[in-house]
């Protein structure tokens, strides 16, 4: 299966993708084989069902959101390989010598930001934050307390006083955290 799939990937495609994302050809082939193994319908694109079939995503509280993030750019609710790789490129470790926009700190943060911002208005509202918090903490915290936590969180980050967290405020609030390291994955070689 792996062999066949890598054959389907054209040389030119690999080059384009490499240029765009900075992945090495070997990594791209690996990703492609993963892509095809996820693609149960063999139609060259992944649907939401394909993603959600991954068993481990079921226990991930943010699983749905992560899957959703892959579909940000697609119109027909299908992700092709290019889009798939482009999303994953956000999680490449940052190296000093190579300049690539996709895995910059800001892009990583934007991915995290999109986890909250469901309605794409570039702002995290209290409700959006609450929804994510609910997913992450489960039953452990009472609604009342979660409410106040959300409120406080927004207040903490909110500099312009609109009761929302814009992307700039989001970045500013996370200024001290080590996003570059945390949101990087050692990709298969």
């Amino acid at each position, binding site marked *: 299966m792996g062999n066949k799939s890598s054959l389907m990937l054209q040389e030119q495609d690999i080059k384009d993708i490499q240029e765009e994302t900075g992945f090495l050809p070997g990594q791209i082939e690996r990703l492609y084989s*993963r892509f095809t*193994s*996820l693609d149960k319908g063999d139609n060259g694109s992944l649907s939401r069902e394909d*993603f959600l079939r*991954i068993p*481990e*995503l079921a*226990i*991930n*509280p*943010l*699983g749905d959101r*992560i*899957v959703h993030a*892959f579909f940000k750019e697609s119109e027909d609710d299908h992700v092709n390989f290019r889009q798939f790789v482009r999303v*994953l490129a956000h*999680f490449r*470790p940052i190296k000093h010598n190579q300049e690539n926009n996709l895995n910059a700190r800001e892009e990583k943060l934007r991915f*995290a930001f999109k*986890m*909250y911002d469901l309605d794409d208005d570039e702002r995290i509202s*209290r409700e959006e*934050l609450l929804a*994510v*918090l609910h997913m*992450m*903490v*489960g039953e*452990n*915290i009472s609604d009342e*307390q979660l*409410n*106040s*936590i959300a*409120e*406080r*969180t927004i*207040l*903490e*980050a909110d*500099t*312009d*006083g*609109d*009761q929302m967290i814009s992307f700039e405020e*989001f970045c*500013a*609030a*996370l200024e*001290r*955290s080590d*996003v570059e*390291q*945390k*949101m*990087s*994955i*050692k*990709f*298969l070689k």
Partner: protein
Amino acid sequence: MSLLKISSLVCEICVCAVLAVWMTAGSSAAALDITSFDRNRTEGLDDEMLQELSNGSHSPAHSSACHEEHKPHDGIRLVSLRWSEVGVYYTITTFVIIAGFTKLGFHHLRWVSSRVPESCVLVVLGVILGLIVFFTTRGVDPAAKCNNRVELPHFTSDKFFFVLLPPIILDSAYSLHDRAFFDNLGTVLVFAVITLITVIIISGPSLYGLEVAGAMGNISFTFAESLVFSSLISAVDPVAVLAIFQELGVNKDLYFLIFGESLLNDGVTVVMYNTMQAFMSMSMVTAGQYALAIIAFFIVVCGGIFIGIFFGCLTALITKSTTDVRVVEPLAMLGLAYLSYLTAELFHFSGIISLIVCGLLQAHYAFNNISQKSYTCVKYFTKMASATCDTIIFMFLGMVLVSDDHVWHTGFVLWSIVLCFIYRFIVVFVLTGIMNNYRVKKIGKEEQFITAYGGLRGAVAFSLVNMLDKKLKPRKIFVTTTLVVILATIFLQGMTIKPLVNLLQIQKRRVGRNNLNEEINGTAMDHIMAGVEEILGQHGDFYLRELMIHYNDKYLKKWFLRPSCETKLQRLFEKIAISEHYAHLYGPVAMIEDKVKPLCPSIKKGQRTRVSSFSESHSDEILINPRLRLESGDHGDAHNLPGLINDGSVQLRKKRGSVLHVRQSRVASEGSQLSLSHQSSHDAQTLRKAFRSNPYNKLHYKYNPNLVEEEDQELAEHLHRRHLNARRMSRLATSSRAPPYDYQRQFTPVDPTTDLDLQDGVAELVERHFARRRTMSTLRRGAPLQTCYSSPGPGADYPVSMQILQALQEAAEPCSSLPDMRTQADATEEPSHMRPPSVFSDPGRSVATEELIKEIELESIEPASLTDNTENSRSEEEALLASITEVDSSAPNAETEGKE
């Protein structure tokens, strides 16, 4: 000043010396009619204590041998000494206390502590003590030794492993419960196991080869002996590393890399040492023996882990049901941890590994089960015990240096030091090179250097070498060499590592706690990364972590945690909320009290002293968010105040559905009302009533048998927080409202008799504060000032009532004429946080409003930046306070706070 401190240290040393002389030169004891007590054992004092307990006061065997002449007096004696019974404990206690106090002396000697690590100073002190003991006891006839001497405690391997080491390990195990440690666990394990084994395997034969080649000169030892020596000298020592690196404050990754390595390589050391010793006694070593040695290693490590898990879980289960008997909580924690160490040692497993695992589990589960007080108790006890043991270990190391028994061999010593140093560097660099391929965060060259350079040797090595068979020929050389290597690493590397860390610009450790955003997003990021790994089909660190958290949440938590346990996020939130709550609660009151103080000195004095005694401990607890100071304050007070207008808030609630807005507007309207009705005496009265019924008093007398959140009932805690808040409040209030001279003119001439003036002043102060607060909250809601002014009445999105507008203009006036204070505050804050001025750039605006806006801009600084600048703001605050009150008593207090 410093002379005084030095002299205090000298005093301590003198006391040390006197005690040593007194205890060791026992002849005076006879004159004091002290019954004799045999001190001739080599086992150390602990055994003697046991003996003592089992035999009664003293064993009949020696009382007959030496003490015929000291027949007990008949009859009743009025004054007598019970040295025979008390002596042992007395000596031990005194020694421990003195050792502990040297820490104090060290920290007061600034110029020493900034240059030399504490461990070095302690070793030097130990040497001095050793010298004193040595010279005072040298002349004593050995025959007279059966007499009345109580020896100073000295180093024995048993004492080290069973008394001194466990507290240090436990304390570090608690500190290992950190994300950074688990993130680096793989690398740490590789370091701890592979680095150590490699170094042992290389350096042992190298030493042997050098000996055979004749590079060392006149010395002879076998191959097996060289391996034993290398196995005990190669291990990095946790105590030495901890002592040095805690002072350094390097970033967490590097810290846990070195410290984790030093802790975890104990298992390897013990196994290697035992194996090599076994090899030494065998004539032929077969392949089967090697296999057994490897199996032994796994048994020692796994046995340790298993026992640690067992006791860790046991602690969790026990603490789950201690709700009614809080007293036993610290006992359960500490006792079971020590028991896990002892149990592991009983079965020849690694006690250190067992204790670490137990400590980690305790930190994970039991800490959440026990009450805050018990946690504090455990924390303080382990810290105190580990600090004391640490001190004693280093002093012991210094003391054993002074002895007749040393055999110096220059060649061997030098080669050992050089080989230890070089091999560690080579192995560390090679291994990190390999490990970096598997790490997302690479270990830089500088950090590799520090990792290798931080490989300090310490008391573990010395204990092991002490345990060597007495009949071994090169034993004395080994002992001396080990000691020299230890001292060389502690002194040379320990003293130079600080400048090197600065020179190589190693990233330092981040201080301060996470804010809520970081906490939430940290968790979110973990989930995201786990999800992405799942999509990739690549089961990496994040995936494993996620899986572990999942099972932890699903099964383990149910068994080991109380149902009421809070999550980390909750705790952080509570911490922030509580500290702010106090700020809201007492801010205004305390602000006024601060001003009143100079007027009633008798009250002030009492309060001052009480507050200052607690001011050291909690300085970092309080985060003040200028935006929130009043908004979410207590509603009880707000209701008591007259003229509380609620219509605006109702409207708001409908429109925005946000509780916060309701609060803001309530305070806002209340403030405006206050400032509008300018009847100061009436206001002052109401205020006083409000102050009297404030929740502080209620909280204080609450009956609370279960001690739930009972720190809220402690006067000290309240006073302390209140005081801190007061200072910040007053700083904020004065910095933007009035310059110091204005304030003085208003208050200093007032003597206690003119009560009315005082009340007026207080009222005015408070009401100005409210006015300012209100204007701020108006602006915060996002409405530009322009719209507030141009369109009175409810705006499109943010309704602003007329009263607020009026008050806004009014409030603008007092600050317009006094800009100099503001600019001073301006300079200290970071300009990047300012609001862009373009929003307000309107030429038709009055000067007064401009001033107001500037002031507001100043206020809208991020809370994070405020906490970051605590140092700054505090000193600024002190300066302000000093200039405001011009009272002598505030100065010493200010000094103590400034130091923090």
